[in-house]
């Protein structure tokens, strides 16, 4: 027997073969440590690239400069200055875009998933619109709704609606043939079958759609603010970029990503609360 830290085969006698199972290094270290190591590696590489002067600071500022701007923006946000009101504008845009997308997406999804009319007549149009580059509608929304928050909400909602439609419809198809037969045999009405069987069964699908929508609504809100100006965070980013203030752009994007993460984790939290029976989702680290 080889001498190892623990005796893997206490009953082994001389002459027996003993296999010692090797644990891969990546399996042995915890997630936070792995994430930290990668972070340090990336920032280190970043520092090397910028300090060696391989890249112009206008294209890629150093980590130090970016950190300075992070602190500056952070102070501005905490003190309730103009950046906080910009972030608040974008947050409102994202919130209302998400609420509208969820409402319309869910309604259309139920129509498509539950009614023959929706499946036959509505779905082809939805698919056709979904394949269009939705950002191209931004000028239209601005023309219709003006340069205020409404046009940005519209674009954000427009982008985020389709994943919810698709996920809701798919979720309504998810109940098995036996489950449908069971409800039929119990004399359930169509509404009972929808509310007590199909919707709960489809919830995991719908939450997947909501997660995709959460990403889409952020992209829609910021794109709207890029193209339509206004008082949001997107306008701040565009302004800083046009002044070649790259560290500021980096800092603003990082804070903006916190808003996206917040929305995403609200969805994940809601999923864990409402889809408590779905073990696969519970064990998943980030939903």
């Amino acid at each position, binding site marked *: 027997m080889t001498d190892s830290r623990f005796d893997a085969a206490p009953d082994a006698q001389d002459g027996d073969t003993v296999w010692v199972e090797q644990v891969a290094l990546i399996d042995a270290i915890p997630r936070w440590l792995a994430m930290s190591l990668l972070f340090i590696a990336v920032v280190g590489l970043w520092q090397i690239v910028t300090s060696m002067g391989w890249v112009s600071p206008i294209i890629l500022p150093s980590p130090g400069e970016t950190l300075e701007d992070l602190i500056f923006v952070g102070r501005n946000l905490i003190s309730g200055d103009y950046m906080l009101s910009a972030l608040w504008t974008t947050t409102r845009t994202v919130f209302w875009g998400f609420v509208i997308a969820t409402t319309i997406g869910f309604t259309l999804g139920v129509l498509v998933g539950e009614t023959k009319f929706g499946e036959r007549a509505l779905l082809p149009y939805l698919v056709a619109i979904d394949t269009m580059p939705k950002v191209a509608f931004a000028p239209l929304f601005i023309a219709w709704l003006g340069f205020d928050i409404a046009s940005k909400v519209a674009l954000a909602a427009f982008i985020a609606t389709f994943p919810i439609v698709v996920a809701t419809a798919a979720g309504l198809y998810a109940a*098995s043939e*036996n489950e449908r037969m*069971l409800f039929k045999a119990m*004399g*359930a009405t169509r509404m009972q079958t929808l509310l*007590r069987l199909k919707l709960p069964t489809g919830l995991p699908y719908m939450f997947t759609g909501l997660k995709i929508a959460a990403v889409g609504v952020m992209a829609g809100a910021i794109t709207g603010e890029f193209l339509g100006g206004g008082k949001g965070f997107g306008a701040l980013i565009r302004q800083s970029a046009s002044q070649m203030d790259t560290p500021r752009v980096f800092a603003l994007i990082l804070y903006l990503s916190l808003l996206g993460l917040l929305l995403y984790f609200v969805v994940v939290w809601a999923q864990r609360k409402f889809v408590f*029976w779905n073990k696969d989702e519970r064990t998943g680290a980030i939903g």
Partner: protein
Amino acid sequence: MTTMAERRPLQQAHPVGRPVYEIARLSKTYASNQLVALADVNLTLREGEFVSVVGSSGCGKSTLLKIMSGLSPPTAGRVMLEGRPVTGSRPDIGIMFQQATLLPWKTTIENIVLPIEIRQGRAAARAALPRAHDLLALVGLKDFANVYPGELSGGMAQRASICRMLISEPAVLLLDEPFSALDELTRDHMNMELQRICREANATAFLVTHSLAEAVILSDRVLVMKPRPGRVEEEVTIDLPRPRRLEMINTPEFGRIVAHIRALLDREGA
């Protein structure tokens, strides 16, 4: 109907109860492809009787079960349960599928009262809880009332679905290969449990199965069905004493019956 049954009236061979389920001259033709799924099926289930149907896939046994459960209309014939024609789903029909189909977001006991909840509302479902607890005790799941189905084994889940089937006190139990998704040991055990539960409830049961051994060990009669068109080829009376025990599978008598049914199914290779 079959020659054997005509020669030997079963009512006399097995003096069981009054007729519960009566099917006469039942036929089913699917309009879409002119397929004759069932032709001239005649069948009477008497109170407390256990009848199985075996046959290759496509012989119409699943169609027969769907018609009997009111989930699918026949093309012609009489389908009468407790003297009333079956025209749709009915509370006095209990059904069990191959999968337990328990709703994962409801606890075991909530799943069991679900048929009451759907038909009569939440208040009636609450009122049925004591009965549901009794049923859980009957199938040996007393301690699992408030557990979610995700924590039940396959056999336990099927026990729970037996309770759900029994909660509305059905006149007839329709069993669609209820244990075929379970492993063999569990399946044998569940079959014996099913026999015990049926005896205690004096249930009238109709079982569709692929397993000849399962059909013979459980049944008073076995219908052998053949396809194209779907029909009852022969009705085999099982004269083994009750209660049946698993050891009976090894007796020559049991072997003879299974061999006889197998020969019927193999004939003309259909």
